[in-house]
């Protein structure tokens, strides 16, 4: 067709409304959100830092194993490597690295969830584009799933890419047999990230469906996380002096789950107070926060569509 042909042409293809609508929503939204520099920098930052840290640690270990003269190398490298290996053992070191790295990721993931999740429905409401979405043959499920996939892309990249990068670096630098030997630890290292993805994702999108302005959604999301964190700690440490109250905070609950799935020697655990939270209470907390956010989202999205 000539580029300037302005005549109307019939389309002879076959349109097939399907579940791929959610993929279409997700891919379009991801491309749009990636134009935000802060978000782009955050999701690239985490895996890069993870690679650098893992390369240093496993590289030092590997160097300690190789019998070559020390010329040209930092003189302490083999000693550090040897000391680290003695303390942890091979598989525990991967768990320790993930455990050390995860709380920072979990804190920063709040920012990722807020900035990637807050505009997803709030902007559609404000711009009234829901009228366009729902004039197409899509279901509520497709719309919500598309928004979730968008947020999972960002949260997944931020929370799951670092353990993957660490495992791959470990495999690359620690010699043969590492991939199989550390597979279990690697699998467990993905669990806290996956749990946080679901919880933060559901909460951020749920909040996004409540308001019409992105800024408000960001503030409400931050407010809920911070309020729950301070309330949990205040109730647990001050008012009731019972660590069960830490379960009020999703942040503490996820940290407790992390300590369960990635156990490391007790002397390396910096704050034991979260570890005193009952594990089942932590899982209940995560389930209630995620389920409650989803229920709010489902209730809200039906109302929103009607008034779109």
């Amino acid at each position, binding site marked *: 067709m000539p580029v300037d042909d302005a005549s*109307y042409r*019939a389309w002879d293809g076959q349109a097939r409304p399907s579940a*791929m609508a959610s993929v279409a929503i997700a891919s379009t939204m991801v491309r749009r959100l990636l134009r935000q520099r802060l978000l782009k920098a955050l999701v690239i930052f985490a895996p890069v830092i993870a690679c650098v840290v893992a390369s240093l640690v496993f590289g030092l270990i590997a160097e300690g194993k190789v019998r070559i003269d020390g010329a040209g190398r930092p003189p302490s490298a083999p000693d550090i490597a040897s000391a680290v290996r003695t303390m942890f053992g091979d598989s525990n070191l991967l768990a320790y690295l993930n455990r050390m790295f995860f709380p920072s990721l979990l804190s920063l993931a709040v920012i990722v969830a807020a900035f990637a999740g807050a505009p997803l429905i709030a902007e559609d409401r404000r711009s009234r*584009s829901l*009228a366009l*979405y729902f004039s197409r*043959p899509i*279901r509520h499920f497709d719309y919500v799933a598309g928004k979730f996939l968008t947020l999972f892309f960002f949260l997944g990249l931020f929370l799951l890419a670092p353990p993957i990068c660490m495992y791959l670096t470990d495999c690359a630098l620690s010699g043969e047999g590492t991939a199989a030997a550390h597979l279990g630890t690697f699998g467990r290292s993905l669990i806290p990230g996956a749990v946080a993805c679901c919880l933060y994702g559901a909460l951020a999108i749920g909040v996004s469906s409540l308001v019409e302005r992105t800024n408000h959604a960001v503030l409400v999301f931050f407010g809920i996380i911070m309020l729950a964190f301070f309330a949990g700690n205040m109730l647990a440490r001050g008012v009731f002096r019972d660590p069960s109250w830490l379960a009020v905070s999703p942040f503490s609950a996820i940290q407790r789950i992390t300590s369960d799935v990635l156990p490391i020697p007790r002397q390396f655990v910096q704050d034991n107070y979260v570890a005193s939270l009952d594990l089942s209470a932590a899982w209940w907390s995560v389930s209630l926060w995620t389920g409650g956010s989803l229920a709010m989202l489902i209730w809200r999205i039906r109302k929103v569509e009607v008034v779109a």
Partner: protein
Amino acid sequence: MILQTNHLSKSFGTTVALDDVTLEIGAGATGLLGPNGAGKTTLLRVLLGLLPAKGTASVLGVDPMRSPREVRARLGYMPESECLVPGLYGVDTVSFMGRLAGMPARAAFKRAHEVMYFVGLGEERYRDASEYSTGMQQRLKLAIALVHDPELLFLDEPTNGLDPRGRDEMLTLIAELARDHQKHILLSSHLLKDVELVCREVVMLRGGSVARRGDIKELTAGQTGAYLVTVANHDAEFRASLTELGAVASAKSPVHVVLPLGATTELIFEASRRSQARVKGLMAVRRSLEDVFLDAVEEPHAG
């Protein structure tokens, strides 16, 4: 029959938006006329399956309340309000909506370019849609409605916010779609001229119920008792004779004559005999769509 409703009613709290709407709409372009708040947009949304309502409806042979996705796959909707997805280029918006309609990604992208050229936005494809002027946004919404090549188009106030030139261009595009590409169109508007230019049939809504419907030619063909008469000579005497016989005659030529109630054109010829004026032309004055609309809107509500 493209579209059919049977005793369709919809209320929002105590406000009745649709009140027992029963209508049938055939192929081609049909206008949906009514003052603001008459229920036009609500009717479109019920027919899209976006709102539940009492009664039954059928769009392209499908019940929109039972199978809304099937209906939406076969029709294109151009909403009245500003509703573009923020932060996307024009062509990406159209392509995205094509994908949501079930088109494969590549086909949607190629088709998006075609329809952007058709609506006259070819050169503006790669601009952020939120930077578009009102006229361009209206064109973009038409492109979105057309991207999956639907059989039926619901166009809600498509000329809103357009300047006279933009309005003409938009109406020309819509008329071309109906005339040359056999698209069925339901054009909702409060602008009578828009409907008159594009549509063959019209449905007039008032207070949520159907006030008039039918072929525009038939609706405007009703007797008004008014005629335009051209006479070759004795203008003044002709007017005086008409006045004597009880008619109202204008001072300008051709003479606009309004006959008294019950009188026929025989009265005009009687006046011409009396004044010895030679009648060169006689034409009945048709009712305008505006006359029909005002009658429909102002007559007492049956309900």
